[in-house]
């Protein structure tokens, strides 16, 4: 199951990369379009595949549990299997057409690699979150529901609430708060990182300048990557913790 779907996923990105390059004829613009697709799609695919894989391989897991294997290695192995194969599909599927197009000689290479790195981070984050949800819910339908809700919340609703709060508190200085709020949501964090790297922060006005001052520096970049890593590490720790206590 896993391998067949990751080929489809790979083919999809391959196609997306090729089509974008043909339509755009400009690497930087293609990167921006790709960002919009990746920021929303990667978390969704990570979530759905994570949940689906966990529930589908339940029987297999039970078979492995009776073998002399550590629980943490069974579950981390499954998690890494899904996350790595999804990230590989993303990186290879997008990377190949861009490399053939002449990415290595252009100056968009750093923007592009940042895009792929954040994309992989998002895959790892959302697959881990999906595994957490699946581990805590015996009921498949419930698990799927929660996972989709989580994605919807982080991809769409969070932004809405964030925006509302900014409008509501517009009389106060909000730079710090908005940077903080962006940090807490991996999707927002990735989007901001890439946008600022692409040097279109002028579009964002004053806030853009504040953001640029923070995220544009090496310090901001490092902090952002630390945040993304925390978003990976915490759910993974919970996977090992939860799996040690679960009955099968």
């Amino acid at each position, binding site marked *: 199951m896993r391998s067949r779907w990751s080929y489809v996923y790979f083919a999809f990105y391959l196609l997306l990369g090729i089509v974008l390059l043909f339509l755009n004829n400009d690497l930087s613009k293609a990167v921006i379009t790709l960002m919009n697709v990746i920021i929303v799609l990667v978390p969704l695919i990570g979530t759905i595949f994570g949940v689906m894989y966990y529930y589908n391989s339940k*029987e*297999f897991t*039970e*078979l492995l549990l*009776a073998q002399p*294997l550590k629980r943490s290695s069974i579950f981390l192995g499954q998690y890494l299997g899904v996350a790595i194969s999804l990230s590989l599909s993303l990186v290879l599927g997008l990377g190949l057409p861009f490399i053939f197009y002449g990415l290595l000689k252009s100056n968009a290479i750093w923007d592009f690699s940042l895009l792929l790195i954040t994309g992989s981070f998002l895959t790892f984050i959302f697959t881990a979150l999906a595994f957490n949800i699946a581990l805590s819910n015996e009921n498949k339908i419930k698990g799927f529901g929660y996972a989709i809700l989580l994605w919807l919340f982080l991809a769409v609703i969070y932004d809405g609430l964030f925006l509302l709060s900014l409008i509501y508190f517009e009389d106060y200085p909000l730079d710090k708060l908005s940077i903080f709020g962006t940090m807490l949501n991996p999707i927002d964090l990735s989007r901001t990182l890439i946008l600022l790297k692409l040097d279109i922060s002028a579009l964002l006005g004053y806030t853009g300048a504040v953001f640029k001052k923070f995220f544009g520096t090496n310090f901001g970049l490092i902090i952002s990557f630390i945040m993304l890593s925390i978003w990976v590490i915490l759910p993974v720790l919970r996977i090992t913790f939860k799996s040690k206590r679960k*009955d099968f």
Partner: protein
Amino acid sequence: MVSIQNLHKKFSKNIVLSGIDLDIDSGGIFAVLGPNGSGKTTLIKSILGMVIPNKGEISVLGENIKKNSSYRNKIDYLPQIANFPSNLKVRELIKMIKDLRKQTTEDERLIELFNVTPFLNKKLGTLSGGTKQKVNIILAFMFDSPLIILDEPTTGLDPISLIRLKELIQKEKANGKTILITSHIMSFVEEVSDEIVFLLEGKIYFKGSIQKLKESTNQPDFEHAIASILTNNNA
């Protein structure tokens, strides 16, 4: 061989095991009996570490099983419901389990014995219940472990395979292994087991030989002895 002290387990509010103390000596065939939902499978899964007990200690071959996985090298387990990944071929599954544990050539003999050769290249999802159970038996018996746990081994087997299974169990017993069986087929239990453990409402109600059970219940045959326990306890 296996020693269990004060084992408690409940699933949310449903108390399944309440204070099991059990010592199983090495060598011989032990049957765990009890009505549906008396905690037989939970007891077995606790020994395997698949179910985490709320309270109590379990040790297998002198090793405490808590936070330990290597002791499962010494256990062969036949699960009650043969749930295999349906997109795998029989041959691939056998090879995979062999890679996980240790290499053995015993599987070829067992495949021959249970007539599974024609199914080796079929996917597990397409097999009938009985054939799946045969694959299950091959996986459980192909390693030479000192403790064998069989949860309802007779499910779905045809008469010839049942005879083969009984022979296999007797042969392993003659090799000095400890075998733990649960079953609802009383005639099967009476035929193979040396000693029985009777679970009732999460406790051990009786432990001893079949002869002793017949004497204590004043019943001439095994099936009636079990039935009398159940009617006396309104279970």
